[in-house]
């Protein structure tokens, strides 16, 4: 069942200096997955999460310029999030934990390679080049 609900009312007519208001055009919100009254007790189908485009590494010093491809795999009870371009991994009991672990790992990798960039081997030079392309230091 899909329920459409009204988004916040649009601001009044655009004022010349009202930049913030004029930039908002969130038109409508669709809510799906809202089930009958007993839906809280329903058996929800498992969500298949195999890939995410990551737009943040949870570090205020780093800004993702281009999305980082993350693939998820399950190994026993654990989830592995793989930063495909960097061959970096994050682990957790669920995808959210694994993603946060990977975000920290990528940020750590960035600063480590930045510090050691003058003496990197060929493989790590390639990783460093990709990191610089994907991530910008503020």
């Amino acid at each position, binding site marked *: 069942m899909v329920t459409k609900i009204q988004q916040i009312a649009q601001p009044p007519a655009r004022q010349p200096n009202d*930049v*913030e208001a004029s*930039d908002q055009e969130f*038109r409508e919100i669709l*809510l*799906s997955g*809202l089930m009958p009254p007993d839906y809280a007790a329903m058996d929800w189908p*498992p969500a298949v999460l195999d890939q995410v485009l990551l737009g943040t590494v949870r570090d205020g010093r780093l800004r993702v310029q*281009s999305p980082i491809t993350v693939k998820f795999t399950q190994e026993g009870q654990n989830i592995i999030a793989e930063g495909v371009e960097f061959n970096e991994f994050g682990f957790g009991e669920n995808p959210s934990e694994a*993603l946060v672990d990977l975000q920290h790992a990528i940020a750590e990798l960035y600063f480590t390679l930045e510090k050691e960039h003058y003496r990197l081997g060929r493989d790590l030079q390639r990783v460093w080049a990709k990191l610089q392309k994907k991530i910008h230091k503020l």
Partner: protein
Amino acid sequence: MTTESRSPSQIVSVLVAALVCDVAVVDPSTRKKNLIGIFDRVNVGKFPTTRSMSLYLKVTDAEGDYDTEVRYVQVGSGKVLAQAQGKLHSANRLASIDLLIQFPPLPIPAEGRYEFQIRANSVFLGATFIDAVPRRQS
């Protein structure tokens, strides 16, 4: 009549804030947003249950059009329990966009963590969470 189709922005925006609250209202005269009862923990007498929530989002460094999606996910199982979708447009990267999403009662099937995951043009920008815990009997 012409139909204007705009391609999704390639610029990865930055999620500045994501807050869950009881009630979110827009002051009709000033357009200011008011958040009442910000929380990240729900005390539940009996699972499963449902609860109404509002989500406040603020995004910056955005330019162009964004298909925005908010997924309400049970972290432990990875199940997507609800989803909101909409469109955002920003003309100025230096400005910010903020919006309120007033969800109808959302399911809380069991104890644990629930995330609101925010994506713009399929890129994961970040998440905020609530923890559902059993209410202590006095």
